[in-house]
Each structure stands twice: as C-alpha cells, then as structure tokens.
C-alpha cells in the first residue's frame, strides 16, 4: 500500500517537469515540421499552400548549402582537434606538482565564463583588428604586414575564438578524469621503468578514453549551434556561414519560413545522431 502510494506521489512530483519539457519539445517541433511542408513567406503573401518535400529539396540544392556544411564541419572539427589535444596536454601539466596550482586553474577556466558576445567582440576588435588589434602590433613588430583576420583567415579566426572559449571545458573535464586515475598503477609503471611516453600511451590515455569521448560529444552538440560568435564578427560572410547561421538567415532575415524550417529539420536530425551516441554512454553510466 505504502509503496503504491509512494509511487503515485512520485509520478505526481515528476509531472510538472515532464509536462513542461514535453510541451517545449513537441509544440515547436510539430510546428517546424508543419512549416517545412509549406510555402510560407510571412512578408510576401504569407501561407501559399502545401509543397510536399519541395523545401527539403530546395534547401539542399541551394548554392549556399554545401559551403555551409563545409564551414560547419571545419569549425566543429577544428575546435574539437584544438581543444582535445591541448586539453589533454594542459590537463597532464596541471596534474603535476607545482606552486599555485589553484590560481593557475582559475586562470585557465576563466574563458568559459565569459559570455560569447563579449569574447567574440573582444577578439574581433582588440586582437584581430587589422589596424589597432594586438595581433596587428605583434605582426608589425616582426616586420610583417598585419592580417585582416576576419576576412582573410575568417574560418581560422572563428576557430581560434571558439577554441579559446571551450579549451577550459575540455581541460577541466580531462583533469577531473586524470585525477581519478589510480595513482598506484602509475607508480607501478614508473618503478617498472616505463618511459613517460609509454606510461601516457598505455595507462593514462586508455583511462581518459571515456572522458575524451564525452568531451567530443558534448562539445559537438554545442558547437553545431554556435551563433553569437558569428553574429557579432562576420555575420556569416567570408565563408563562415554555418548551417545554424544559414537557417537563421533563411528564417529571420529573408523570412522564408518554409525553407528555413526544412533546414531546421535537417539540423535536428544531425544533432540527434550525435546525441544518440552521447546518450548511450550516459545511459550506461546510469546503471552502475
């Protein structure tokens, strides 16, 4: 009796959260699907009827689609590569004995707490500006011509800004994972005379495997939808129009809602493929 009572009480306690999230997921999702099958231009005639899969075909055959996929992949791939590699190295370093470890951790973690619009604007103006930016001064100091970062090396610049924001996240998670490593195992390796590189390859790296996977999956999900960093720097020009930014432009700037919604559905499918892998790992972890 008591357990039955407890169980229905439990269900009642969960209800608000479940109902809210269900509404938050289903209502917009159904609307996006609905619009994606319509020719819908709010500023130019409004609802012009059903078009079947026309929007889906038009979205992927438009000339801006493949470049946007390419830009997305380069940005996500570049940031992942930089943050994971540097994150592992930095986590290894921070795990070593040193003076002032707590302060160094604070310095390293700081960029993660800087809001995206601030970091994008600071980088854009105070570092990458071709006249007054610090990089320009640095380049001139070495006798080089200053670069116009955000137009001449636009993708690289975005990758640099976003990597700066996400390196702390990767480092912190990898550091947490390293610190949970069995010290005795490492010391045993040391006593057995295994050189540092071998210890890293055979003891540390396998241990970090899961943490690295999680860093990659979570970052991918967030990186696929970076927006502010592009919005306040290049506005999608110079080849930095990602899939997210393309959809944003279709929906809000050119107000072609049908087309944008079809793009939205593609984005949702893409994100869900990544999410599926993440959920499997997280789900496995729940059982233990």
């Amino acid at each position, binding site marked *: 009796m008591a357990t039955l009572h407890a169980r229905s009480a439990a*269900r009642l306690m*969960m209800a608000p959260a479940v109902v809210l999230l269900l509404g938050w997921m289903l209502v917009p999702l159904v609307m996006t699907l609905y619009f994606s099958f319509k020719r819908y231009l709010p500023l130019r005639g409004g609802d012009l009827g059903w078009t079947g899969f026309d929007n889906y075909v038009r979205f992927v055959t438009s000339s801006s689609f493949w470049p946007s996929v390419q830009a997305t992949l380069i940005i996500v791939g570049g940031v992942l590569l930089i943050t994971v590699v540097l994150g592992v190295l930095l986590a290894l370093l921070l795990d070593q004995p040193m003076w*002032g470890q707590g302060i160094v951790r604070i*310095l390293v973690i700081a960029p993660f707490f800087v809001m995206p619009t601030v970091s994008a604007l600071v980088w854009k103006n105070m*570092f990458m500006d071709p006249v007054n930016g610090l990089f320009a001064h640095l380049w001139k100091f070495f006798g080089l011509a200053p670069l116009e970062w955000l137009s001449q090396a636009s993708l690289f610049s975005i990758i640099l800004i976003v990597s700066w924001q996400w390196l702390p996240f990767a480092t912190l998670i990898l550091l*947490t994972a390293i610190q949970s490593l069995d010290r005795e195992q490492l010391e045993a390796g040391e006593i057995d005379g295994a050189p540092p590189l071998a210890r890293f390859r055979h003891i540390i790296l396998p241990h970090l495997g899961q943490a690295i996977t999680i860093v990659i999956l979570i970052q991918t999900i967030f990186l696929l939808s970076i927006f502010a960093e592009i919005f306040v720097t290049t506005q999608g020009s110079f080849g930095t129009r990602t899939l*997210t930014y393309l959809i944003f432009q279709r929906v809000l700037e050119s107000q072609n809602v049908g087309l944008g919604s079809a793009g939205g559905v593609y984005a949702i499918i893409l994100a869900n493929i990544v999410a599926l892998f993440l959920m499997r790992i997280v789900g496995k972890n729940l059982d233990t």
Partner: protein
Amino acid sequence: MARAVKNKQKIINTVAAWGIGLLIFFPVLWTILTSFKTEAQAIADPPVFLFFDWTLENYAIVQERSDYMRYLWNSVIIAGVSTLVGIVVAVPAAWSMAFVPSKRTKDVLLWMLSTKMLPAVGVLYPIYLIFIQLGLLDTRTGLVIVMMLINLPIIVWMLYTYFREIPGEILEAARMDGASLRDEILYVLTPMAVPGIASTILLNFILAWNEAFWTLNLTAAKAGPLTAFIASYSSPEGLFYAKLSAASTMAIAPILILGWFSQKQLVRGLTFGAVK
C-alpha cells in the same frame, strides 16, 4: 639527490603552467586593463600595458549613455528567476527519481537530456511566432520561460546526481526513530540536499547569464540582457575600445567570480554525471 630533481621538475612545471595560464587568461586581463585607459591610450601604438593614466571615466560613460543598469537588471532577473523556477519544478522530479525509482526512470532522464540536444535554430521560428502571438517578444517573462525550459534538463540531472548520493539508510533510520514524513524532509533530507541544490543554482545561473541565442533573437531594447547590450557594440562608431572593455568587464565580472566557485559543479553539471 632525488629531492633536488623533484624540485627542479616542480619549478619547470610551475613556470610552464603559469605561462600557459596567463596566456589563456590574457584576453580577459587585457580587457580589464583597457577598461581603465582613455580611448587614445587604448589604441596607442605601441600598446601600453600597465603604465598609463588609470581612469574610471569609461565606466561612468557606459553607465549613463546606454542604460547599462537596465540591461544588468534584465540579466539578473532573467537568469535568477528562470533558475529559481527551474529549481522549484525540478526538485520534486529529481527527488522522486532518486528515491522512488521505477523501471522508466532511466528512460525519462535520458529523454529529458535529449530535449536539451534539440538545436535551438531548428525551432526558432515556432518560438518566435508563439512569442508574437502571446505578446512575449522582448519581454523578460518570455525569456524567463525559455531560459527555464532550456536549462530544466540540466537542473533535473544535476539534482538527480546529487540526490542519489544521499544514502537511503539514513531515511530508514529516521523513520525507525519515529520521524514523521514532514520531519524527515525538513530535518534529515533538506540539510543534506542543500549543497547540491546550491551548486545547481550556481551553475544554471551562469549558463542562463551567458546564453546568447535566444536572448539575441527574442529581445530588443526593452528586455535585452547584457549579452544583447554587448552585441550592440558590434557596429561601433568612433573610438570605443576602452568603453567596450568597460562594458565587457562589467558584464563578465560577476560571473567570473561566481564561476570560480563552481569549477567542480561545472564538470558534474555538463557531463551529466558521466565524469566525476
């Protein structure tokens, strides 16, 4: 001998780590320093690092010229209220899942996580349309609702992982001692749950404060928080580095300070308990 080697290694570690740490922190430091310069010093060639006439005038100008206080207040309200409402909704849910788990608990948790993965841009127009219909565009209420919903999965998850660490035996012991359900919740569970709830509030306040997709797309002058305020500096006129820096410093300072207290929670909250 071994001790000397160890000390030498420690010095190398320290120098390397401090160097890299300062390099990573440098953009923040540079922003803070620039905020105390005059506009002319801010773009001086070569750049001046520490030896300039420190001034507070940028802070004064930013505050009086652009209604900084209104944006700040919007940020506080949006991040604060959405977090608190989220907690009120999430505590009972996380509680029941942690203490009265059923066969479906795991599926519910994973499903909640999956709603967090929904790319915002995919549902931008529907939300935009609903906001227009309900008169929520450019209102704090609207953003509080959206912010609460996008962070709710993380709040539930974090609380769940904290609650699961509270041993069930303590509850039984309290019950054996004749504690009523009310006593049990008030005197046994609440004190043990408070640290977890506090950490969750902290992290989600930070996430909501820095959120920059919905805040940029659903607000204008009236309900815009600091993310939108800063974005308005993206098409500048005239000299503005020092003012941009002052505005940026004011926007990030509270969160930097809060953030330094929440490093541990960050890992737990953003990896959904998969890395501890």
